[in-house]
Structure formats: structure tokens, C-alpha cells
């Protein structure tokens, strides 16, 4: 809006009147620039109205990028998963269904895997197993499990850690048991069976906790 002079009045004074004029282009451009700046600033510092987001974090997804690993054992279990794929999955399969036709019992729905104490599993992985074993009501009699744990590369300490990792993965993945098997525990169990030679039998394992 701007004031313009119009026709003179009789007294010689100029009567002001109001007329409409278009908004200048530069003002429109300035408004858009301000709008853009506002949107940019909001994205940078607004945190999208979430009370958990403080600078320098920009949004909840951005904040989530810096969250620590909530499961401190995840890497250990991942290590176990890799070892399982390399050493166990040939017979027990990646999915844990086993190979019943060749006498290899499944790991899913297995009372041996669901067993609370890990000692039997550590012994089993260390020395292998021969003879009949009952898993989920079915007797598996034709196969022999090799001493996979003992043949893993590395010294006693590394072997124990690897066996603990495998047991942790199997217990967690197929047995839905929380936590992990500590390498120290595996080492202790293996120290207890160092005089035992050859495969275990199911009866031997039942004596362990």
C-alpha cells in the first residue's frame, strides 16, 4: 500500500487516498529465503520435537547411530555362530534340524541343548560322542560325533574360548537360553576331563551337571 496524490480539492490541499500495489518481488524472495533458513535451522536444532534429542544430535535415528551395543556378548555369540557354520553345520545343519537319516540328532527341541548347565555340552563338543543318545524321545544310534572341539586350532585357552563361543551360540540360538558360556568355565570343565580318552557316551554325559 502506498499513499498517492490524487485530484486537488478546492482548498488547495491534497487529499491522500489509498490504492493497492503488488508486493515487490525482492520481498517475496526474502520471505522464501527466510522460510528456507527456518526449515534448515529447525532440522539442525529442532530435534523434531523429541525430548530425548539434544544437540549435536539431530533426530532420534541420528541419536540411535551412537547407541552402544546393548548386548555386550553379541560379538562373542557372533564368533560362535561362525565357528558353528564351519565345524558343526555339516551334520547339524545351519538351522539345527540335524540329519536323522545319518544318525545326527537335531539341536532344536533338544533337551540336551535346553539343559541349564553347559558342562555336558562343553564335554560333548570337546571329545565327541559315540553310542545311542535319546533326543526328544527318539534314539539316535548310528552316528558318531567326532572330537570337534579338541581338533579346533589353537592352544588350550583358545580352544576353550572357541568351544565356549560355540556352546553360547547353540544355547542361545537353539535353546533360547540367556547369557553366554564363559571361556573360563569351559577351561575348567575341560581340565576336569583331560584324563578321559576317546569319545563320551550319553551315560558319561549324564553324570556331569
Amino acid at each position, binding site marked *: 500500500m502506498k499513499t498517492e496524490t490524487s485530484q486537488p480539492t478546492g482548498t488547495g490541499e491534497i487529499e491522500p487516498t489509498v490504492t493497492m500495489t503488488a508486493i515487490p518481488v525482492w520481498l517475496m524472495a526474502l520471505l522464501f529465503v527466510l522460510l528456507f533458513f527456518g526449515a534448515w535451522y529447525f532440522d539442525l536444532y529442532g530435534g523434531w520435537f523429541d525430548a530425548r534429542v539434544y544437540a549435536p544430535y539431530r533426530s532420534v535415528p541420528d541419536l540411535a547411530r551412537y547407541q552402544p551395543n546393548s548386548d555386550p556378548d553379541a560379538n562373542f555369540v557372533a564368533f560362535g555362530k561362525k565357528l558353528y557354520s564351519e565345524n558343526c553345520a555339516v551334520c547339524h545343519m545351519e538351522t539345527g534340524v540335524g540329519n536323522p537319516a545319518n544318525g545326527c540328532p537335531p539341536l532344536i527341541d533338544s533337551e540336551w541343548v535346553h539343559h541349564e548347565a553347559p558342562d555336558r555340552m562343553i564335554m560333548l563338543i570337546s571329545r565327541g560322542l559315540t553310542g545311542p543318545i535319546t533326543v526328544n524321545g527318539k534314539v539316535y544310534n548310528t552316528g558318531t560325533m567326532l572330537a570337534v572341539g579338541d581338533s579346533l586350532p*589353537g592352544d588350550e585357552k583358545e580352544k576353550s574360548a572357541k568351544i565356549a563361543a560355540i556352546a553360547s551360540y547353540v544355547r542361545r540360538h537353539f535353546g533360547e537360553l540367556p547369557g553366554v558360556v564363559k571361556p573360563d568355565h569351559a577351561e575348567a570343565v575341560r581340565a576336569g576331563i583331560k584324563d578321559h580318552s576317546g569319545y563320551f557316551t550319553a551315560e558319561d554325559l549324564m553324570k556331569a551337571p
Partner: protein
Amino acid sequence: MKSGSLVFLTAFVALAFSWTGFVLVPQLQLGRLEAAKTVPAGDAYPVARSGQARQGAEVYRSLGCVYCHSRQIGQQGTTVEVTLTSVGTNAANVLSAIQKAAPHLAATASLASVPQVLGQVADTALADDAVTAIAEAGGEATVAILPDGPDIRRRWGRRRSVAQDYLYDPVVQPGIRRFGPDLTDAGATRASAEWQLLHLYAPKTVVPDSTMPGYPFLFVERKIGKTPAPDALPLSGTFAPPDGHEVVPTEEAQALVAYLLSLRADAPLYESPVTPPPAPATNGVAVATK
């Protein structure tokens, strides 16, 4: 006035809008804040202060400490750092695992000395992948989430301050001036009660170029009785009291120190992630009595 009601309504809407944004929404978001859990340890945070420390908060307030000391840490960025702590038996295997998982980390990795900082990655998911790969190759690595900024480089805090940090402060005193250092993490960096007491009595005893005034009225100078008081300050030189006298802190000084030692804000929270230091903080600088 021709359009008085319109002017009133416009002003009212403008004020109500800003009140909603500045007062109402923050109150709805943070007004019912409760103790949270640290991430990932799951400890309760913050921990309520002891009665003595709560009295000390009142002393802190009455002495106007807030006019020279702030209690808020800023942060400019966050880095995620991967540190190799062990190469295991097969160093070459570990190196190729690093190369596969995070190529830019392998560039500087020499594997000759551990622990070795491999470098920074964009987020913790990538860092965890790298750690997993290293673990699979037989090595060990750790991830550290390191907030960064001028305040944090001065070691005034380990991460930025968030609303949760002030939950149990009946009067929040974030402060706006920093004639003295920020006190957010004072209990961790200066964990010695004796240091704090000496510093309150005469700051120059422990910080020679300190500009802080002393607060000797929080202490009593008195004749030594049959045996010296166990909590007498170990003063010497120009600060020492006359022979046969000792300087002992009053209850107010003890309470203030208890409050200062309770000032810690390094708990890792969801809104301010940080990897706490592996070992507990040391007792700060040695007490300079000579």
C-alpha cells in the same frame, strides 16, 4: 479505537503461541521426568544425594557459586572409535578381517603394538561389525563412543548435560558465566575431600594462579587442644595459622564439599551416549602443601 478487539486478539494469539512453545510443551515433555536407566548397564540414574550433600547444595546456593561456576556441558560432535586390544595368534588374519569389515581402518593398522586405536567409524553398528569381524579372526577390539567439544576437551565433563542430570536438584543452577571452571564433573575430576577443603579455604594453596576468593569464614581457626583435630587442614607457608593453632572446617564447609564431590555427570544415557572410562577416576591432583 476502531479494531481494538482485533489488536487484542492478535496479541493474545501471538503470546499464547509462544507460551505454548516455550512453557507448555517443555513442561509436558520434561515435567514428569523420572530416574532413568543408564545404557547399556541399566543402573538407576541419577542417584539421590546424601543429606549432607543436599545441605551443601544450599550452601552452594547461598554463597553464590553460580555467579562464577556453570554446571552445564556443551557438545559439538560424537565420534565412534575402534581400538584393537589383541591380535590373537594370527595377526595377518586380523588385518584382512579389518580390511574386509572397515577398509579405512586398516590403512594405518600396523598390528605391531596393542592396544592400538584403529580409527573412527560413522556409527556404532559399523563399529560392532568391525569388532565382530576382528573377533572372528581371533583378535579382540573395543568400541568407544567419544563425545567431543571444547568443554569436554577441558575435561569438565565426559558428555553434554541433559535434563536428566538436574533431576534431583531442587534449584537448578546451570549458571551462565565461567570465571571459574565448570563444575559438572567436579566430583570425578577432583575426588579428594582434602583438596576441596584446602581449595575453599585458600584456593592458591592448591592452584597457585587461581582467581577464586577464599572462603575462610567456612573454617574455624582455633588453639590446638590436647591432640590436633583429625580434620585440621594441612596448611603450611604463608597460609599456615599461627603456632599452636589449627584450621578446621565447619559443618557448612563439610556439607559444601560433600555436595561438590557428589557432582558427577558421566553416566551414559540414551539421550547422551558415552563410553565411560575403563578405570575409575583417580583422586585428581596431589595436594600441594609445600
